[in-house]
């Protein structure tokens, strides 16, 4: 066995995004040892990129708004695939979580009466989205960072968790690499919160940061938990297309929320053909498909996008409320107060993920809790803008709370060092000198291309089969040869981490494609051109995966409908 450092902590939180840090803050209340680990430096998680806002039915702008409308918008938006017990908790607890953030020091933009301002967002009946300019995610995460610093929560940065340790159907620890020096760490814990976020890096065009590689979903699966709705990946309608270096960078929904309009190359406001009622503020799935159709049918712009224009809005408003966008495009040579932006869809948010059994965020593995983009069920088949940040807060808090309570009632279990040794071997076999090595970047380039082309916005059986064949070939022929340039030292060996992430990406892609093949209907973000209808009779159910003796098995699980039946 290779050397490793053993760290004991009551609760281990994997991920330092909005979910993980909120969980840590909560768990810290229980007088326990809490450790948070993350792949990147503190405060730099994906959550910091969120721009548009965070939803809570405060009713500050539209007094008619309340949790019931928020609920309805969310399940309608989610095409009725949401588990309604989760949604109910989300929308009911949302206002208190916003107030928590304020309590920790967050600053949201205000209304003239001094209350938090709220902007309209796609498919929301009322103005419900709280915001700080268009860097709300930064405000949320920076606030949580402040609070964790205040509470003195241990955050270990640049730690890559590669495997959860289990014993008799419960988690008892985790194995990780400390990227900074290449050392192995073994955590011995009573409870774990998984909050590792999304997996957008499966796709060539994505808004997601480098770390969104689906690690947590695979960690959970390998530990015996279930994942579901893996076919449900949201494509954001508006991401940058030009210059190439900016491809996929998000153009926030707030642009349309503030009044931005979509035009094709002919200058036609085409949304009136797709959704004359909601126009640009239709659901993300619908707008993404509309944009993609315009582009595919030859009405796209020079660089293969459609136009998104705010030139009719007050330039001062654009520069303040859409400050990030203004600067982002200016750097690319476009003054958005004068010229339209060129945009096209990009992979944005994973609705699928770890199955949590109920609102305590527990999974079917004892001691393992999960929240945020890690999980499935809250957003159904399509997430509403602004609902993810609030998800991180509501379920982050709950994950922290229940993990802590669980830890309180439990003792440490002895680590099975065979598991450690096996995992070390797996990792070191990648870091071995190989003549015919295949570098992770090569696999990723092809995978993300294949996924984009065949398992993207429009899917059909043929394309999905193509993707599956490719993935199976990669698994059989390429992953065994996975290798890296520098085999002499693990100190900040970025490529080793990339290799491990690549394996996770391939496996996540496989789950996505297999699920997409099984679901022979269209619902929310999952659009099958060969099955364009939504089939509520047969398909109000989740496709749920688990590993049985190393083999992927699926079953169906009915959607939890507790409040409102689909029409």
């Amino acid at each position, binding site marked *: 066995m290779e050397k490793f450092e053993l760290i004991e902590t009551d609760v281990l939180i994997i991920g330092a995004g909005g979910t993980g840090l909120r969980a840590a803050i909560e768990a810290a209340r229980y007088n326990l040892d809490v450790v948070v680990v993350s792949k*990147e*430096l503190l*405060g*730099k*998680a*994906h959550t*910091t*990129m969120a721009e548009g806002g965070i939803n809570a039915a405060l009713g*500050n702008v539209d007094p008619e708004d309340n949790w019931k409308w928020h609920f309805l918008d969310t399940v309608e938006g989610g095409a009725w695939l949401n588990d309604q017990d989760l949604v109910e908790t989300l929308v009911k607890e949302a206002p208190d979580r916003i*107030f928590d953030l*304020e*309590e*920790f*020091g967050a*600053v949201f*933009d*205000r209304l*003239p*009466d*001094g*209350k*938090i301002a709220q902007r309209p967002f796609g498919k929301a009946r009322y103005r419900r989205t709280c915001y*700080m300019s268009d*860097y709300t*995610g*930064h*405000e949320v995460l*920076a606030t949580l960072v*402040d*609070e964790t*610093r*205040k509470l003195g929560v241990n955050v270990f940065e640049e730690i890559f968790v590669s495997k959860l340790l289990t014993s008799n159907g419960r988690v008892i620890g985790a194995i990780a690499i400390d990227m*900074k*020096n290449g050392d192995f760490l073994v955590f011995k814990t009573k409870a774990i919160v998984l909050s590792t976020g999304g997996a957008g890096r499966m796709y060539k065009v994505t808004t997601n*940061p*480098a*770390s969104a590689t689906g690690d947590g979903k695979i960690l959970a699966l390998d530990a015996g938990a279930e994942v579901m709705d893996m076919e449900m990946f949201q494509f954001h309608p508006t991401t940058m297309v*030009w*210059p*190439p*270096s*900016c491809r996929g*960078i*998000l153009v926030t929904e707030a642009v349309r929320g503030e009044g931005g309009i979509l035009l094709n190359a002919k200058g036609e406001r085409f949304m009136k053909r797709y959704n004359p009622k909601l126009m640009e503020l239709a659901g993300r799935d619908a707008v993404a498909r509309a944009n993609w159709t315009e582009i595919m049918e030859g009405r796209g712009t020079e660089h293969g996008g459609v136009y998104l224009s705010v030139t009719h809005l007050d330039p001062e408003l654009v520069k303040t409320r859409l400050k*990030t966008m203004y*600067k*982002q495009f200016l*750097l*690319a*040579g476009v003054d958005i107060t004068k010229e339209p932006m060129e945009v096209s869809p990009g992979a944005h948010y994973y609705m699928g993920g770890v199955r949590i059994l109920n609102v305590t965020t527990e999974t079917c593995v004892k001691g393992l809790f999960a929240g945020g983009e890690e999980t499935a069920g809250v957003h159904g088949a399509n997430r509403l803008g602004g609902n993810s940040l609030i998800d991180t807060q509501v379920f982050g808090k709950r994950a922290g709370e229940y993990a802590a309570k669980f830890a309180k009632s439990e003792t440490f279990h002895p680590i099975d060092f065979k598991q450690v040794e096996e995992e070390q071997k797996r990792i070191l076999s990648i870091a071995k000198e190989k003549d015919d090595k295949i570098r992770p*970047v090569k696999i990723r380039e092809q995978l993300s291309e294949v996924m984009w082309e065949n398992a993207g916005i429009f899917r059909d059986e043929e394309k999905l089969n193509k993707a599956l064949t490719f993935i199976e070939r990669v698994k059989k022929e390429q992953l065994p040869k996975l290798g*890296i*340039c*520098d085999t002499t*030292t693990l*100190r*900040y*060996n*970025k*490529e080793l981490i990339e290799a491990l992430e690549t394996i996770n990406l391939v496996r996540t892609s496989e789950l996505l494609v297999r699920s997409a093949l099984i679901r022979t209907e269209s619902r929310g973000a999952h659009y099958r051109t060969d099955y364009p209808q939504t089939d509520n009779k047969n398909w109000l159910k989740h496709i749920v995966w688990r590993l049985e003796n190393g083999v992927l098995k699926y079953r169906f699980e009915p959607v939890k409908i507790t409040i409102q039946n689909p029409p």
Partner: protein
Amino acid sequence: MKMNKETKLKVKVFRFNPLKDAEPHYEEYEVPYIEGMRVLDVLNYIHDNYDGSLAYRWECRAGQCGSCSIMINGKAGLACQTSVDPETKELIIEPLPIFPVIRDLVVDVEKGYKKLLKIRPYLHRESVSQHPEIIYQYEIEDIKPMRECIECWSCVAMCPVVQNAWDIYGGPIVMTHLAKLSFDKRNAFDHLLTAFLEGLYACTQCANCKEICPKEIDIPEKAVGKMRYLAYNKRNLVRNEHRKIVENVRRFYNPLAEDNNTRADWAKDLDIPVAKRGAKLLYFVGCMASWREQRVARATATLLKLAGENFTVLGPYERDCGSVFVRLGDMELVKEFALYMKNIVKNYDFDAIVTSCAGCFRTFKIDYLEKLGIDLGVPIYHSSELFAQHIDEGKLTLTTKLNISATYHDPCHLGRHVGVFEEPRKIIRTIGLKFKEMLNERYKENSRCCGAGGGVRSGYRDIARDIAAYRVENDVPKGAKVIVQTCPFCYFNFEDAVRTNNYSVTNIDLTELLLVSVMGEDAIKVLGSDRYKEIMSLSRGE
């Protein structure tokens, strides 16, 4: 932007694995340029195509996370937000200084975290508040920009005070966080006092940090400046050294505690108009040139005369410009001086003002207007601007070529803050100097502060001198014999560093050189024969 598929970039990257390498080295790569390319794309290209072992950080590639800050051609910045200029001869990429290297471009920011945690960088609530909380938009306008900080550490890498005295000055990022908390009405903890203890008055307000902050946070003015204002006026948190200066100015109308009646003593033998009615141009000499660097005043006044300007100095009627008080936050005192100046300009009916000191220049030009709303109503020139114009118009003719290897220090108040970069360089070239820019790309916008500004010279003399010494040691090109100065304040501080450390380089004000170039040997009358001989012997390469 030019579309050129063939362009290949030459990229030099810092490589170092402290576990294996005895010392760092640079590796060169050739990277094809594509339109709109950012430095992060260059690193990714190298990583993907040449060497997967290259260590660097990135996450969002959208300027939102602050992971990717590195040194790009001597300037700290975000790799993902820095466009590559295809015309660049060579792209040099290095890790942030100050922090120990983990590997290649990845540094360990632990030291920075310690500084940050020390100030308790979070809101302290007195009691749990009622919700919804009523907060008006105007109450958050000051803290909003501070809250934008993404902890990229670029500012810290660029701050001259951090480089030389991090133990005394917390650094720009620390000031940003302190400002965000000091300005927050919900906060119950005395972060202003913390700021004072963390060296609030040790910032030179050079804006080296602001220049590169990806969130464009105006740290010197909106964080440090505003906190100083509150500390000074509302809390009486002032350093004794500064108290003394304030007292001096109140009593003597100058910070040096000189008898203000002797302001124009330097002019006695030169036949320079003092408080002359009917003059159209006011030469505002400033305290340093009046008493400490009198050659600058003598050369400047003589040149103005030679150029045929109808000018005057004020002599005993010249009072402090108020610069130090702007930097300390004593706006009441500044206002007094600003109104006095406005009156003078009106009374004498001047058409324009020329200054020797970059500090006076900035104060008249920017601070009176922006901080007090007082407009002197006439154009303000720095002497280098005026003399460049005189040369152009043939009002000054150069007779003697000066063949000296020299470099030039851009004063912050003249260069980065106001944008006067070209005129001094034009004069330098015209008088024949063999001119080289400062090293490490530290010139023009990226010029490094001399260390004297912001009240640091008076408050922390050693720090100021050490910062100048650092610049002499690191930035002055090999072979340069002279640092050309255009601000008596910088001059004085550099001179202190040069004397203390016995450096072989000589500080000379631009006006002195120009005077010799115009007058030849006759300049002896103005500068004295020692100085003249010194300049000529430098010119002969001795």
